[in-house]
């Protein structure tokens, strides 16, 4: 895999930034000349990861430090895009359980527990690294068909 380009950004974990973040990553990915469907898949996966940071990562007084930042790092390779989305919030105690379809810790706010399932099915690879009280880092790889 050859590195072609990369960028990073930090922004506040606010719901107004969900649309902003997925659009930025979608525009950056378009340098690889993906199809409309591939861009839509990327935007959807990014939206899920960012929404999780906004909804879950900093919920609870203990995790609100006035910063509540989300970090995104994208690398364009000669075969696709790698997207890393990181927060510094509460973390996930049991990642394996959290990744299961329909598992949610917030059913009261009408969450359906499908975010990880959607990220997984809209990308080619998804890794989750999380530590309680330290934060969560999601890495996704999306291969672009015209480059294979």
């Amino acid at each position, binding site marked *: 895999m050859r590195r072609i380009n990369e960028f990073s950004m930090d922004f506040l974990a606010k719901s107004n930034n969900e649309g902003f973040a997925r659009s930025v990553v979608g525009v950056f990915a378009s340098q690889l000349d993906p199809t409309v*469907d591939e861009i839509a898949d990327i935007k959807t996966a990014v*939206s899920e990861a960012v929404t999780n940071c906004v909804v879950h990562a900093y919920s609870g007084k203990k995790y609100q430090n006035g910063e509540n930042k989300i970090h995104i790092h994208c690398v364009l390779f000669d075969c696709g895009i790698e997207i890393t989305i990181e927060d510094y919030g509460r973390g996930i105690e049991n990642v394996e359980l959290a990744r299961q379809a329909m598992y949610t810790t917030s059913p009261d706010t009408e*969450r*359906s527990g499908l975010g990880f*399932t959607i990220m997984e099915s809209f990308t080619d690879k998804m890794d989750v690294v999380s530590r309680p009280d330290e934060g969560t880092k999601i890495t996704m790889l999306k291969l672009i068909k015209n480059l294979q």
Partner: protein
Amino acid sequence: MKFGLAHTGNTLIVRIAGELDHHYTDEIRYRIDSEIMKPYVHNVVFDFNKLTFMDSSGIGMIVGRYKKVKAVGGSIYIMCSNKTVKKILEISGVFQFAKICDDINDAV
């Protein structure tokens, strides 16, 4: 995101255009629920034909409204032309309870 409500008979039509995400679902939920509360409303049609983006927040919103109309014996209908949005609706299993339809006349 653009949002509009209309009534025909005992059916509430919810039109959402543009991008639907967590930032908008709270407000939309509130506005739909104040209509569903009216005694003559039984069914809800989600017109997603002009929706260009949706994520799991939209699924939560649909499932929540289903629980409300089910309590009064009503049904949920969905119109959707966007391929990616359809994929999410399929993965989520909402078609186990919601009926997909091509135009409003199929629902009402």
